[in-house]
């Protein structure tokens, strides 16, 4: 493959996000305001928002969720950017990773020096069934027609993976437990509790109500109990699925040569990859994402790095099985070995390749249009040594990455940042 390179260097100089959650009293404008204000305040040497030359905004489907489309100019007006250009990017759950990418290209081309990129989604104002219907808009039509839902798509991938590699639902529980173990340390997480916390809370609630207390000896027993963890799309159970979320995230990108005016700790964009996929009917394999593999190839090719050079990564875990397969497709583990790596603790916060230090989509939340940049906000926090109790404790921590997936693998990105 041709070695990709940017026309000029691009750096991240500011980043911020809302706490993810289900907000009855906040809409997309309120959420983006919070993320924007935090982003501006994050610029070490101060930042005048008048310096922003353009906005790239990821949003999947507020059209469906709140019956309002065309969000880029609305957000641009909100933050005082209009009449400067504002462009919406849509890549399902990878919408804001595409906004980031377009922002990088806009600067790399020399056209702009400073742009704002980000994403927003407001999903919780409709019923669970309607959210399922809205998300299913991003399945391919042949899938949607026969009744596939999003959890169903990943249920299929899981049964294919189980049949091929001998894994089971129990192996997926390890992903959930691992991600939730990081969540209490992330003040932005929607569900900042470990699985054990939630299990114990249920036992206490039963006792308080005078009911017989459930006898779960550990998290695996709890997650194996169908009354506590019912199937949504077997083998995807409740705790295999990320929650419904509202939220926003954003970042300021600047040409590398001026980044020093704003911070002494800019993060350089050293690898940026994207791929597109196909539905099941056309997929070469049901246990790999071609789009992720292509995104990885582009990003590794551009950076000159290998998978073992990545010191930690956010990996799109909309469903537990997705994290396992993507860690294989990104080259962190061999095919069929991803589930063993989680079982052996290799992806824990203190493991050799920490995955989803933020708690992942599973516990941090997944307001789809905001997810891509929020993953990069986590990389920003980690590489600047600002991640508090969830800080990756590696010597010379300097390279982190984020993988974002949209749809049923129709759009995947992989972005590698380096602290200079």
């Amino acid at each position: 493959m041709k070695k990709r390179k940017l026309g000029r260097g691009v750096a991240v100089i500011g980043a911020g996000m809302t706490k993810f959650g289900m907000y009855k009293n906040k809409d997309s404008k309120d959420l983006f305001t919070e993320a924007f204000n935090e982003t501006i305040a994050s610029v070490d040497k101060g930042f005048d928002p008048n310096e922003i030359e353009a906005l790239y905004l990821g949003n999947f489907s507020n059209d469906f969720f709140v019956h309002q489309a065309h969000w880029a100019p609305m957000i641009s007006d909100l933050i005082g950017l209009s009449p400067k250009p504002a462009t919406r990017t849509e890549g399902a759950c990878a919408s804001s990773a595409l906004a980031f990418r377009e922002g990088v290209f806009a600067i790399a081309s020399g056209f702009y020096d400073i742009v704002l990129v980000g994403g927003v989604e407001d999903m919780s104002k409709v019923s669970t069934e309607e959210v399922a219907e809205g998300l299913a808009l991003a399945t391919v039509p042949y899938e949607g027609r026969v009744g596939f839902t999003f959890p169903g798509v990943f249920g299929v991938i899981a049964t294919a993976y189980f049949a091929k590699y001998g894994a089971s639902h129990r192996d997926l529980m390890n992903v959930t437990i691992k991600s939730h173990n990081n969540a209490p340390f992330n003040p932005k997480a929607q569900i900042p509790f470990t699985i054990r916390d939630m299990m114990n809370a249920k036992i206490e609630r039963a006792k308080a109500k005078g009911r017989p207390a459930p006898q779960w000896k550990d998290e695996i027993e709890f997650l194996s109990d169908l009354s506590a963890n019912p199937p949504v799309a077997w083998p995807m159970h409740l705790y295999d699925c990320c929650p419904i979320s509202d939220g926003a995230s954003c970042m300021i990108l600047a040409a590398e040569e001026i980044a020093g005016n704003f911070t002494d700790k800019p993060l350089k964009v050293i690898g940026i990859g994207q791929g597109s996929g196909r539905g099941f009917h056309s997929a070469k394999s049901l246990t790999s994402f071609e789009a992720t593999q292509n995104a990885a190839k582009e990003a590794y090719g551009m950076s000159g790095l290998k998978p073992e050079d990545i010191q930690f990564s956010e990996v799109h875990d909309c469903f537990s099985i997705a994290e396992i397969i993507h860690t294989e497709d990104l080259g962190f583990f061999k095919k069929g070995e991803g589930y063993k790596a989680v079982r052996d603790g290799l992806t824990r916060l203190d493991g050799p390749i920490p995955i989803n230090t933020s708690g992942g989509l599973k516990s941090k939340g997944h307001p789809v249009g905001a997810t891509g940049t929020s993953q990069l906000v986590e990389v920003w926090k980690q590489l600047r040594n600002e991640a508090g109790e969830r800080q990756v404790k590696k010597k010379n921590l300097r390279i982190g990455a984020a993988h974002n997936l949209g749809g049923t693998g129709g759009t995947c990105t992989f972005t590698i940042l380096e602290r200079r």
Partner: protein
Amino acid sequence: MEKKIFSDIEYNKYLNKKKLMGSKCKKCGSLFTPPRPICIDCYGTDMEWVEMKGTGKLAAFTCISIGPPFMIEEGFDRKHPYCVGVVELDEGTKVDARIEGIDPARPETIKVGMPLAVKYLHRKKKGEKLTYLAFEPV
């Protein structure tokens, strides 16, 4: 005979007549289900319609407890899940389908690799008959 373009609309009309059709590239012989108008292997555009035998095996599946509104209207819910899957046809291509003739409440009894044969299901959408693919164990 009028030449039918290789579209989803024509594919669905065939499904209404209980025919599972694909398209085959006359140049390189690649076969596609559902049909494609452009061969993604050689970029050939001279395609022909081919009827599939309608037999295959289960490549992967899921049993869905929380379905979209149109499945809820059909009576499916948390207590009555339904099964959908990917079927690898004997001809080597794949299709998405409902899986019938199994117990979706007992997914552990459904096996990847089990042999299946096509059947057709119907529902009304805005008053129009809509046929969609299903398979059941042979």
